[in-house]
Protein backbone atom coordinates (compact mmCIF):
# COMPACT_ATOMS: atom_id res chain seq x y z
CA UNK A 1 0.00 0.00 0.00
CA UNK A 2 2.69 2.43 0.98
CA UNK A 3 4.65 1.64 -2.11
CA UNK A 4 1.54 2.25 -4.17
CA UNK A 5 0.93 5.57 -2.51
CA UNK A 6 4.50 6.64 -3.16
CA UNK A 7 4.06 5.63 -6.75
CA UNK A 8 0.82 7.60 -7.01
CA UNK A 9 2.51 10.64 -5.54
CA UNK A 10 5.28 10.34 -8.06
CA UNK A 11 2.74 10.06 -10.84
CA UNK A 12 0.95 13.19 -9.73
CA UNK A 13 4.13 15.17 -10.06
CA UNK A 14 4.67 13.89 -13.52
CA UNK A 15 2.72 15.07 -16.53
CA UNK A 16 3.39 13.08 -19.68
CA UNK A 17 2.81 16.17 -21.80
CA UNK A 18 5.59 18.21 -20.22
CA UNK A 19 8.84 17.34 -21.91
CA UNK A 20 11.96 16.74 -19.87
CA UNK A 21 14.64 19.19 -20.93
CA UNK A 22 17.57 16.85 -21.59
CA UNK A 23 15.44 14.65 -23.81
CA UNK A 24 14.61 17.64 -26.00
CA UNK A 25 18.31 18.15 -26.52
CA UNK A 26 19.01 14.48 -27.22
CA UNK A 27 16.06 14.29 -29.62
CA UNK A 28 17.22 17.36 -31.51
CA UNK A 29 20.76 16.10 -31.83
CA UNK A 30 19.65 12.60 -32.80
CA UNK A 31 17.39 13.91 -35.52
CA UNK A 32 19.92 16.50 -36.71
CA UNK A 33 22.49 13.78 -37.30
CA UNK A 34 20.04 11.70 -39.31
CA UNK A 35 18.99 14.70 -41.33
CA UNK A 36 22.56 15.82 -41.96
CA UNK A 37 23.58 12.41 -43.28
CA UNK A 38 20.58 12.13 -45.54
CA UNK A 39 20.88 15.69 -46.81
CA UNK A 40 24.61 15.87 -47.43
CA UNK A 41 25.68 12.37 -48.24
CA UNK A 42 23.17 9.60 -48.71
CA UNK A 43 20.42 11.15 -50.80
CA UNK A 44 22.75 12.95 -53.24
CA UNK A 45 24.51 9.61 -53.56
CA UNK A 46 21.40 7.64 -54.38
CA UNK A 47 19.94 10.40 -56.55
CA UNK A 48 23.04 10.34 -58.71
CA UNK A 49 22.72 6.60 -59.13
CA UNK A 50 18.99 6.81 -59.85
CA UNK A 51 19.69 9.45 -62.46
CA UNK A 52 22.37 7.26 -64.03
CA UNK A 53 19.99 4.33 -64.04
CA UNK A 54 17.27 6.40 -65.64
CA UNK A 55 19.72 7.58 -68.30
CA UNK A 56 20.87 4.01 -68.87
CA UNK A 57 17.32 2.78 -69.22
CA UNK A 58 16.40 5.60 -71.57
CA UNK A 59 19.56 4.99 -73.56
CA UNK A 60 18.61 1.34 -73.73
CA UNK A 61 15.16 2.24 -74.92
CA UNK A 62 16.52 4.52 -77.61
CA UNK A 63 18.92 1.82 -78.73
CA UNK A 64 16.11 -0.70 -78.82
CA UNK A 65 14.02 1.70 -80.85
CA UNK A 66 16.81 2.18 -83.38
CA UNK A 67 17.28 -1.55 -83.62
CA UNK A 68 13.59 -2.02 -84.15
CA UNK A 69 13.60 0.45 -87.02
CA UNK A 70 16.60 -1.26 -88.54
CA UNK A 71 15.02 -4.67 -88.15
CA UNK A 72 11.90 -3.36 -89.82
CA UNK A 73 13.82 -2.07 -92.83
CA UNK A 74 15.81 -5.28 -93.09
CA UNK A 75 12.61 -7.26 -92.93
CA UNK A 76 11.09 -5.21 -95.72
CA UNK A 77 14.21 -5.66 -97.79
CA UNK A 78 14.04 -9.39 -97.24
CA UNK A 79 10.40 -9.47 -98.13
CA UNK A 80 11.08 -7.61 -101.36
CA UNK A 81 13.92 -9.95 -102.18
CA UNK A 82 11.81 -12.94 -101.39
CA UNK A 83 9.01 -11.73 -103.65
CA UNK A 84 11.52 -11.11 -106.42
CA UNK A 85 12.99 -14.57 -105.94
CA UNK A 86 9.53 -16.12 -106.05
CA UNK A 87 8.77 -14.25 -109.22
CA UNK A 88 12.05 -15.35 -110.72
CA UNK A 89 11.41 -18.94 -109.72
CA UNK A 90 7.97 -18.87 -111.28
CA UNK A 91 9.42 -17.47 -114.46
CA UNK A 92 12.12 -20.14 -114.54
CA UNK A 93 9.58 -22.85 -113.91
CA UNK A 94 7.44 -21.55 -116.73
CA UNK A 95 10.43 -21.44 -119.01
CA UNK A 96 11.48 -24.93 -118.03
CA UNK A 97 7.99 -26.19 -118.67
CA UNK A 98 7.97 -24.64 -122.09
CA UNK A 99 11.39 -26.01 -122.88
CA UNK A 100 10.40 -29.39 -121.61
CA UNK A 101 7.28 -29.44 -123.74
CA UNK A 102 9.30 -28.44 -126.80
CA UNK A 103 11.87 -31.11 -126.02
CA UNK A 104 9.21 -33.76 -125.64
CA UNK A 105 7.60 -32.77 -128.91
CA UNK A 106 10.99 -32.87 -130.62
CA UNK A 107 11.78 -36.26 -129.15
CA UNK A 108 8.40 -37.56 -130.19
CA UNK A 109 8.95 -36.36 -133.72
CA UNK A 110 12.40 -37.89 -133.75
CA UNK A 111 11.02 -41.15 -132.45
CA UNK A 112 8.35 -41.15 -135.08
CA UNK A 113 10.88 -40.53 -137.77
CA UNK A 114 13.19 -43.29 -136.57
CA UNK A 115 10.27 -45.67 -136.32
CA UNK A 116 9.27 -44.91 -139.85
CA UNK A 117 12.84 -45.33 -141.00
CA UNK A 118 13.09 -48.67 -139.26
CA UNK A 119 9.79 -49.77 -140.70
CA UNK A 120 10.84 -48.62 -144.17
CA UNK A 121 14.15 -50.43 -143.84
CA UNK A 122 12.26 -53.52 -142.73
CA UNK A 123 9.95 -53.30 -145.66
CA UNK A 124 12.88 -52.92 -148.09
CA UNK A 125 14.61 -55.88 -146.48
CA UNK A 126 11.49 -58.00 -146.72
CA UNK A 127 11.03 -56.98 -150.33
CA UNK A 128 14.62 -57.85 -151.16
CA UNK A 129 14.34 -61.19 -149.35
CA UNK A 130 11.10 -61.93 -151.08
CA UNK A 131 12.65 -61.14 -154.46
CA UNK A 132 15.68 -63.33 -153.68
CA UNK A 133 13.41 -66.12 -152.49
CA UNK A 134 11.20 -65.76 -155.56
CA UNK A 135 14.14 -65.88 -157.95
CA UNK A 136 15.65 -68.85 -156.08
CA UNK A 137 12.28 -70.54 -156.08
CA UNK A 138 11.85 -69.86 -159.76
CA UNK A 139 15.15 -71.52 -160.59
CA UNK A 140 14.36 -74.50 -158.35
CA UNK A 141 10.85 -74.86 -159.75
CA UNK A 142 12.24 -74.62 -163.32
CA UNK A 143 14.83 -77.20 -162.53
CA UNK A 144 12.31 -79.54 -160.87
CA UNK A 145 9.81 -79.07 -163.67
CA UNK A 146 12.46 -79.78 -166.30
CA UNK A 147 13.64 -82.86 -164.44
CA UNK A 148 10.03 -84.01 -164.04
CA UNK A 149 9.29 -83.39 -167.70
CA UNK A 150 12.54 -85.13 -168.63
CA UNK A 151 11.56 -88.14 -166.59
CA UNK A 152 8.14 -88.05 -168.21
CA UNK A 153 9.52 -87.54 -171.68
CA UNK A 154 12.43 -89.86 -171.17
CA UNK A 155 15.19 -87.62 -172.17
CA UNK A 156 16.92 -84.67 -170.69
CA UNK A 157 15.28 -81.59 -171.55
CA UNK A 158 17.72 -79.59 -169.56
CA UNK A 159 19.85 -78.30 -172.34
CA UNK A 160 16.93 -77.67 -174.53
CA UNK A 161 15.02 -75.97 -171.87
CA UNK A 162 18.04 -73.84 -171.08
CA UNK A 163 18.22 -72.89 -174.75
CA UNK A 164 14.59 -72.25 -175.35
CA UNK A 165 13.69 -70.47 -172.18
CA UNK A 166 10.39 -72.35 -172.25
CA UNK A 167 10.22 -72.67 -168.50
CA UNK A 168 10.74 -69.01 -167.92
CA UNK A 169 7.97 -68.16 -170.23
CA UNK A 170 5.68 -70.67 -168.52
CA UNK A 171 6.47 -69.32 -165.12
CA UNK A 172 5.89 -65.76 -166.27
CA UNK A 173 2.53 -66.79 -167.46
CA UNK A 174 1.83 -68.38 -164.09
CA UNK A 175 2.90 -65.15 -162.41
CA UNK A 176 0.63 -63.16 -164.59
CA UNK A 177 -2.26 -65.45 -163.81
CA UNK A 178 -1.55 -65.16 -160.12
CA UNK A 179 -1.40 -61.38 -160.43
CA UNK A 180 -4.68 -61.33 -162.27
CA UNK A 181 -6.31 -63.65 -159.71
CA UNK A 182 -5.17 -61.47 -156.80
Amino acid at each position, binding site marked *: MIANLVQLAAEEKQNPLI*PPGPELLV*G*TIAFAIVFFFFWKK*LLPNINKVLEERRAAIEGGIEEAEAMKVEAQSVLEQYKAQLAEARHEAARLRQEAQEQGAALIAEMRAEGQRQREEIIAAGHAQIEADRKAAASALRQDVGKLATELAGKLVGESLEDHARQSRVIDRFLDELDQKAEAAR
Partner: protein
Amino acid sequence: MSDNGCGFPAPGLHSFLFKPIATVGGIEFNKVMLLAIITTAVVVSFFYAAFGKAKVVPGKLQMIGEAGYDFVRRGIVYETLGKKEGEKYVPFMVSLFFFIWVMNIWSVIPLAQFPVSSIIAYPMVLAAIVWLVWVGLTFKRHGFVGFFKNVTGYDKSLGAVLPLVMIIEFFSNLLVRPFTHAVRLFANMFAGHLMLVMFTVASWYLLNSWMIPAAGVSFVMTMVMIMFELFVQAVQAYVFVLLACSYIQGALAEHH
Protein backbone atom coordinates in the same frame (compact mmCIF):
# COMPACT_ATOMS: atom_id res chain seq x y z
CA MET B 1 -5.04 2.31 -10.62
CA SER B 2 -2.77 -0.17 -8.92
CA ASP B 3 -4.81 -0.03 -5.75
CA ASN B 4 -7.05 -3.03 -6.49
CA GLY B 5 -5.64 -5.07 -3.67
CA CYS B 6 -4.62 -8.12 -5.69
CA GLY B 7 -1.12 -6.90 -6.27
CA PHE B 8 -1.38 -6.79 -10.07
CA PRO B 9 1.41 -4.53 -11.26
CA ALA B 10 -0.76 -2.47 -13.58
CA PRO B 11 1.16 -0.33 -16.03
CA GLY B 12 0.77 3.39 -15.68
CA LEU B 13 2.69 6.60 -16.03
CA HIS B 14 5.48 5.03 -14.03
CA SER B 15 6.02 2.70 -16.98
CA PHE B 16 7.33 5.72 -18.82
CA LEU B 17 9.85 6.74 -16.20
CA PHE B 18 13.37 5.45 -16.32
CA LYS B 19 16.12 5.66 -13.82
CA PRO B 20 19.23 7.25 -15.24
CA ILE B 21 21.81 4.71 -16.33
CA ALA B 22 24.64 7.23 -16.38
CA THR B 23 25.29 10.89 -15.81
CA VAL B 24 27.13 12.69 -18.55
CA GLY B 25 28.12 16.30 -17.92
CA GLY B 26 25.32 16.84 -15.42
CA ILE B 27 22.68 15.32 -17.71
CA GLU B 28 21.06 12.15 -16.45
CA PHE B 29 21.29 9.71 -19.24
CA ASN B 30 18.45 7.16 -19.39
CA LYS B 31 17.33 4.22 -21.52
CA VAL B 32 15.14 6.30 -23.82
CA MET B 33 17.97 8.66 -24.66
CA LEU B 34 20.14 5.68 -25.40
CA LEU B 35 17.43 4.30 -27.68
CA ALA B 36 17.12 7.67 -29.42
CA ILE B 37 20.84 7.64 -30.12
CA ILE B 38 20.72 4.02 -31.28
CA THR B 39 17.87 5.07 -33.57
CA THR B 40 20.17 7.56 -35.21
CA ALA B 41 22.87 4.94 -35.48
CA VAL B 42 20.49 2.38 -36.95
CA VAL B 43 18.96 4.71 -39.54
CA VAL B 44 22.28 6.19 -40.59
CA SER B 45 24.13 2.88 -40.75
CA PHE B 46 21.33 1.12 -42.62
CA PHE B 47 21.13 3.82 -45.25
CA TYR B 48 24.88 4.12 -45.35
CA ALA B 49 25.08 0.40 -46.07
CA ALA B 50 22.34 0.78 -48.69
CA PHE B 51 23.32 4.05 -50.37
CA GLY B 52 26.96 4.57 -49.33
CA LYS B 53 28.29 2.79 -52.37
CA ALA B 54 25.16 2.93 -54.48
CA LYS B 55 25.30 1.09 -57.77
CA VAL B 56 23.29 1.44 -60.93
CA VAL B 57 22.44 -2.24 -60.61
CA PRO B 58 21.36 -2.39 -56.98
CA GLY B 59 22.11 -5.06 -54.40
CA LYS B 60 19.46 -6.39 -52.02
CA LEU B 61 20.07 -3.80 -49.34
CA GLN B 62 20.12 -0.95 -51.81
CA MET B 63 16.87 -2.21 -53.31
CA ILE B 64 15.17 -2.15 -49.91
CA GLY B 65 16.59 1.30 -49.18
CA GLU B 66 15.43 2.56 -52.55
CA ALA B 67 11.94 1.19 -51.96
CA GLY B 68 11.74 3.08 -48.65
CA TYR B 69 13.21 6.22 -50.13
CA ASP B 70 10.88 6.06 -53.09
CA PHE B 71 7.89 5.51 -50.85
CA VAL B 72 8.54 8.76 -48.98
CA ARG B 73 9.69 10.72 -52.00
CA ARG B 74 6.98 9.74 -54.46
CA GLY B 75 4.28 8.49 -52.10
CA ILE B 76 4.31 11.45 -49.74
CA VAL B 77 6.38 14.42 -50.89
CA TYR B 78 5.64 14.44 -54.62
CA GLU B 79 2.00 13.62 -53.93
CA THR B 80 1.49 16.65 -51.70
CA LEU B 81 4.04 19.21 -52.85
CA GLY B 82 4.57 18.23 -56.45
CA LYS B 83 7.87 17.22 -57.95
CA LYS B 84 9.20 20.70 -58.62
CA GLU B 85 8.44 22.30 -55.25
CA GLY B 86 8.83 19.12 -53.25
CA GLU B 87 12.34 18.09 -54.29
CA LYS B 88 13.92 20.50 -51.81
CA TYR B 89 12.09 18.95 -48.86
CA VAL B 90 12.77 15.31 -49.72
CA PRO B 91 15.83 14.91 -47.43
CA PHE B 92 13.94 16.45 -44.53
CA MET B 93 10.89 14.26 -45.00
CA VAL B 94 12.88 11.09 -45.61
CA SER B 95 14.88 11.60 -42.42
CA LEU B 96 11.70 12.44 -40.49
CA PHE B 97 9.95 9.29 -41.69
CA PHE B 98 12.71 6.82 -40.95
CA PHE B 99 13.73 8.47 -37.71
CA ILE B 100 10.17 8.34 -36.38
CA TRP B 101 9.51 4.85 -37.69
CA VAL B 102 12.59 3.38 -36.02
CA MET B 103 11.81 5.26 -32.79
CA ASN B 104 8.37 3.63 -32.87
CA ILE B 105 9.63 0.17 -33.75
CA TRP B 106 11.64 -0.06 -30.52
CA SER B 107 8.28 -0.78 -28.93
CA VAL B 108 8.37 -4.40 -30.07
CA ILE B 109 12.10 -5.06 -30.16
CA PRO B 110 13.16 -7.40 -27.35
CA LEU B 111 15.29 -5.72 -24.66
CA ALA B 112 14.39 -2.24 -25.94
CA GLN B 113 10.61 -2.75 -25.72
CA PHE B 114 9.89 0.92 -25.45
CA PRO B 115 8.80 3.35 -28.18
CA VAL B 116 11.03 6.40 -27.97
CA SER B 117 8.23 8.52 -29.41
CA SER B 118 6.03 7.79 -26.37
CA ILE B 119 8.14 10.33 -24.51
CA ILE B 120 6.62 13.64 -25.55
CA ALA B 121 9.99 15.38 -25.88
CA TYR B 122 10.90 13.54 -29.09
CA PRO B 123 7.70 14.14 -31.08
CA MET B 124 7.72 17.70 -29.74
CA VAL B 125 11.20 18.39 -31.05
CA LEU B 126 10.25 17.09 -34.48
CA ALA B 127 6.95 18.96 -34.56
CA ALA B 128 8.79 22.10 -33.50
CA ILE B 129 11.26 21.73 -36.35
CA VAL B 130 8.41 21.26 -38.83
CA TRP B 131 6.66 24.27 -37.32
CA LEU B 132 9.77 26.43 -37.64
CA VAL B 133 10.24 25.40 -41.24
CA TRP B 134 6.61 26.17 -41.94
CA VAL B 135 6.70 29.63 -40.26
CA GLY B 136 9.98 30.55 -41.92
CA LEU B 137 8.72 29.44 -45.30
CA THR B 138 5.46 31.33 -44.98
CA PHE B 139 7.38 34.52 -44.13
CA LYS B 140 9.75 34.01 -47.00
CA ARG B 141 6.99 33.38 -49.52
CA HIS B 142 4.40 35.92 -48.48
CA GLY B 143 6.22 38.63 -46.50
CA PHE B 144 5.10 39.97 -43.16
CA VAL B 145 1.54 40.93 -44.11
CA GLY B 146 1.16 37.87 -46.29
CA PHE B 147 2.24 35.72 -43.38
CA PHE B 148 -0.59 36.99 -41.23
CA LYS B 149 -3.06 36.68 -44.05
CA ASN B 150 -1.92 33.12 -44.64
CA VAL B 151 -1.95 32.15 -40.98
CA THR B 152 -5.31 33.73 -40.22
CA GLY B 153 -7.00 32.45 -43.37
CA TYR B 154 -7.85 36.01 -44.38
CA ASP B 155 -10.74 36.01 -46.85
CA LYS B 156 -12.80 39.14 -47.50
CA SER B 157 -15.80 37.21 -48.77
CA LEU B 158 -16.45 35.93 -45.24
CA GLY B 159 -17.74 39.39 -44.26
CA ALA B 160 -18.86 39.73 -40.67
CA VAL B 161 -17.51 36.38 -39.46
CA LEU B 162 -14.05 37.21 -40.72
CA PRO B 163 -12.65 38.50 -37.38
CA LEU B 164 -13.86 35.39 -35.61
CA VAL B 165 -12.43 33.11 -38.29
CA MET B 166 -9.14 35.00 -38.16
CA ILE B 167 -8.82 34.54 -34.40
CA ILE B 168 -9.68 30.84 -34.58
CA GLU B 169 -7.38 30.22 -37.53
CA PHE B 170 -4.55 32.11 -35.89
CA PHE B 171 -4.67 29.97 -32.76
CA SER B 172 -5.37 26.83 -34.71
CA ASN B 173 -2.47 27.22 -37.10
CA LEU B 174 0.16 28.70 -34.85
CA LEU B 175 -0.49 27.06 -31.51
CA VAL B 176 -2.83 24.09 -31.70
CA ARG B 177 -1.50 22.55 -34.85
CA PRO B 178 2.10 21.93 -33.75
CA PHE B 179 0.76 20.66 -30.44
CA THR B 180 -1.62 18.16 -32.04
CA HIS B 181 1.07 17.23 -34.54
CA ALA B 182 3.33 16.12 -31.71
CA VAL B 183 0.63 14.70 -29.45
CA ARG B 184 -0.89 12.56 -32.22
CA LEU B 185 2.31 10.59 -32.52
CA PHE B 186 3.05 10.64 -28.82
CA ALA B 187 -0.41 9.51 -27.70
CA ASN B 188 -0.62 6.68 -30.21
CA MET B 189 2.70 5.24 -29.14
CA PHE B 190 1.97 5.91 -25.47
CA ALA B 191 -1.34 4.05 -25.62
CA GLY B 192 0.17 1.25 -27.68
CA HIS B 193 2.93 0.78 -25.15
CA LEU B 194 0.44 0.72 -22.27
CA MET B 195 -1.58 -1.99 -24.00
CA LEU B 196 1.49 -4.07 -24.74
CA VAL B 197 2.76 -3.80 -21.18
CA MET B 198 -0.70 -4.58 -19.85
CA PHE B 199 -1.07 -7.82 -21.76
CA THR B 200 2.52 -8.86 -21.32
CA VAL B 201 2.43 -8.36 -17.56
CA ALA B 202 -0.99 -10.02 -17.36
CA SER B 203 0.22 -13.11 -19.23
CA TRP B 204 2.85 -13.52 -16.56
CA TYR B 205 0.69 -12.51 -13.64
CA LEU B 206 -2.16 -14.88 -14.54
CA LEU B 207 0.18 -17.82 -14.87
CA ASN B 208 -0.97 -19.61 -11.70
CA SER B 209 -3.30 -22.56 -11.10
CA TRP B 210 -6.81 -22.08 -12.44
CA MET B 211 -6.04 -18.79 -14.24
CA ILE B 212 -3.75 -20.37 -16.76
CA PRO B 213 -6.33 -20.27 -19.59
CA ALA B 214 -6.70 -16.54 -18.97
CA ALA B 215 -2.93 -16.23 -19.19
CA GLY B 216 -3.13 -17.97 -22.55
CA VAL B 217 -5.73 -15.49 -23.75
CA SER B 218 -3.59 -12.64 -22.54
CA PHE B 219 -0.57 -14.05 -24.32
CA VAL B 220 -2.48 -14.33 -27.58
CA MET B 221 -3.61 -10.74 -27.09
CA THR B 222 0.01 -9.74 -26.62
CA MET B 223 0.84 -11.27 -30.00
CA VAL B 224 -2.16 -9.60 -31.62
CA MET B 225 -1.18 -6.27 -30.10
CA ILE B 226 2.38 -6.64 -31.36
CA MET B 227 1.04 -7.12 -34.89
CA PHE B 228 -1.28 -4.20 -34.47
CA GLU B 229 1.49 -2.03 -33.05
CA LEU B 230 3.75 -2.85 -36.00
CA PHE B 231 1.01 -1.49 -38.21
CA VAL B 232 0.37 1.59 -36.04
CA GLN B 233 4.09 2.40 -35.88
CA ALA B 234 4.34 2.65 -39.65
CA VAL B 235 1.04 4.49 -39.99
CA GLN B 236 1.99 7.08 -37.38
CA ALA B 237 5.33 7.76 -39.02
CA TYR B 238 3.51 8.11 -42.34
CA VAL B 239 0.86 10.43 -40.88
CA PHE B 240 3.44 12.64 -39.20
CA VAL B 241 5.35 13.13 -42.43
CA LEU B 242 2.19 13.54 -44.48
CA LEU B 243 1.00 16.30 -42.16
CA ALA B 244 4.41 17.98 -42.24
CA CYS B 245 4.15 18.00 -46.03
CA SER B 246 0.66 19.38 -46.03
CA TYR B 247 1.68 22.20 -43.65
CA ILE B 248 4.54 23.10 -45.94
CA GLN B 249 2.22 22.96 -48.90
CA GLY B 250 0.02 25.51 -47.10
CA ALA B 251 3.04 27.78 -46.76
CA LEU B 252 3.97 27.43 -50.42
CA ALA B 253 0.43 27.86 -51.72
CA GLU B 254 -0.58 31.20 -53.10
CA HIS B 255 -2.85 33.06 -50.77
CA HIS B 256 -6.40 32.94 -52.02
